[in-house]
């Protein structure tokens, strides 16, 4: 903490220091370049693994959207895949049913529709908290999945949407066999989304979300329109999740109702918790590690993978409550204070 040695500091100095600290907190740190350097480096080091890289970036975006509502606002949801699915299906149905495969416009439409889905469901669900909310969000995803299954004449059901055809990006760039085009496209979008989310998180609105997470009773008592704030955050997060889903559908040219699975909602939450909630970069660390482990372990042995991820979660809960990044932070503090705390 910036003020750990404040005992002897006169109030005037402390005042100046507080103004300085709080006024600069939102500025970028040097280390924040690291994930972006890694994302860029991966492109050059593993040029033939970009299909996988693309999926990692999508997972990061998905986890980042969850961080906004779970990590910052403290909304515990088990149905976040609903919005990923809405985004994916918007893209899929646009091309398969309306013959519209233009990536950028369909991405925008998918994002808006997912955000609308977030707004509507959030308006009703966010009056509840805790276990009730958990069940209701879970039910929302299942309802959407069932609706898709009921109209499998349109959606293709669990076999996937047939005949998806995504056009060239900007009418020029074909998605090559190695997924390089989409890697760059998605990396740029991820960066933009990240800038927006980061901006929101450091805004007064973002502070209010943190306040709701920390103590909702107090927020009511100081006059915060809690429901409105939650719905706003939920809408934004749903839009971003939908964008991730749309990018998934575009990059793979494939979508099935499996995207709405409970497993998908649980997976993104595990990713975020592994990386660390409420710190933006937890989504990057968690999603990357999860995807890498899944890629390696699941190939080796599917049972071992299930066991492995379970073990990882147990270890995280036991030794790294605040996720991997929280652990790194704690270790940093430990060495700084010479092991006193």
């Amino acid at each position, binding site marked *: *903490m*910036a*003020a750990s040695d*404040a*005992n002897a*500091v006169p*109030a005037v100095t*402390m*005042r100046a*220091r*507080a*103004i300085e*600290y*709080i*006024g*600069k*907190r*939102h500025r970028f740190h040097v280390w924040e370049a690291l994930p972006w350097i890694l994302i860029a480096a991966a492109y050059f080091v593993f040029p033939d693994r970009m299909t996988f890289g693309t999926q990692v970036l999508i997972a990061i975006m998905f986890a980042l959207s969850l961080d906004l509502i779970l990590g910052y606002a403290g909304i515990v949801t088990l149905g976040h895949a609903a919005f990923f699915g809405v985004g994916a299906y918007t893209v899929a149905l646009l091309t398969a049913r309306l013959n519209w495969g233009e990536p950028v416009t369909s991405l925008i439409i998918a994002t808006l529709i997912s955000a609308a889905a977030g707004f509507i469901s959030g308006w009703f669900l966010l009056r509840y908290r805790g276990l009730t909310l958990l069940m209701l969000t879970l039910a929302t995803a299942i309802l959407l999945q069932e609706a898709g299954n009921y109209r499998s004449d349109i959606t293709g059901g669990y076999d996937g949407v047939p005949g998806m055809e995504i056009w060239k990006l900007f009418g020029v760039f074909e998605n090559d066999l190695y997924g390089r085009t989409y890697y760059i496209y998605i990396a740029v979008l991820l960066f933009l989304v990240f800038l927006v989310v980061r*901006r*929101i998180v*450091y*805004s*007064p*609105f*973002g*502070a*209010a979300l*943190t*306040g709701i997470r*920390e*103590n909702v*009773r*107090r*927020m*009511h*008592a*100081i*006059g*915060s*329109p*809690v429901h409105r*704030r939650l719905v*706003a955050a939920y809408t934004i997060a749903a839009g971003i999740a939908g964008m991730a889903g749309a990018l998934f559908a575009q990059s793979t040219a494939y979508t099935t109702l499996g995207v709405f699975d409970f497993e998908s909602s649980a997976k993104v939450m595990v990713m975020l918790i592994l990386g660390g909630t409420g710190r933006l970069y937890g989504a990057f660390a968690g999603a990357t590690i999860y995807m890498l482990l899944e890629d390696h372990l699941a190939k080796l042995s599917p049972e071992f993978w299930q066991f492995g991820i379970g073990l990882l979660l147990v270890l995280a809960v036991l030794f790294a409550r605040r996720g991997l990044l929280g652990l790194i932070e704690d270790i940093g503090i430990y060495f700084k204070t010479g092991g006193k705390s």
Partner: protein
Amino acid sequence: MSAPALEVRDLNRSFGALRVARDINLTLERGARRALIGPNGAGKTTLVNLITGALAPSSGSVALNGEDITKVSQAERARRGIARTFQINQLFRGLTVLENVVMAIGERTGDCNNLWRPAGTKRIIIDEALDHLDSLRLVEDSLKLVRELPYGRQRLVEIAIAMAQKPRVLLLDEPAAGVPSSESHLILDVVASLDPDIAILIIEHDMDVVFRFAQQITVLVAGAVFTEGAPKDIRADERVRAVYLGQDAGAGHG
């Protein structure tokens, strides 16, 4: 037509079979200094919850400056000028002291509707927050996380947040509860020096404090107003002694 700052009329509320508020009538004039006393479990905190809208009454009404607010949400009541402190701290424990106060100002001024400007860069808000902290001698702790503070200083943050709401009506629920007496003086001095225009209702078990601070006292017993009056009358009232003061002298409160 100067309506009272706060007027509670025939307020009732039950938890199951337990009637925690029975036909409560209570008025706070502008700038009132009223104490609310009564044995443990009398329903004092419940009354605060009913006034702030944290709880809905089963019948009765609450009016703020003559306007009926019985149906108004808790947050809207806060925006219209009712602030309270909690008997048990309700703070943003993982945030700094400064951020706790800035939050209250941000919600009061509507600044928290802003999704884009970095928080903490609006000097006028930070300066106001630091002024509130200054009056409670909390500036030196402004960058500490609330959970790192001793309980007594956390109690001060409770008051700082309430002050940052710039209330017209302030409800203090045992502001010095759980604080060593060496530090409780600071809290009670602060309370005594609050803006004389604010109508204040204080729940307090320490009779010395009550008799020193209050111009009127309301005694609540088993959810009903037992009696009310000036401190000297309450002090002289044998029945109050029997239900409350005598018990207080014997057992004390936690």
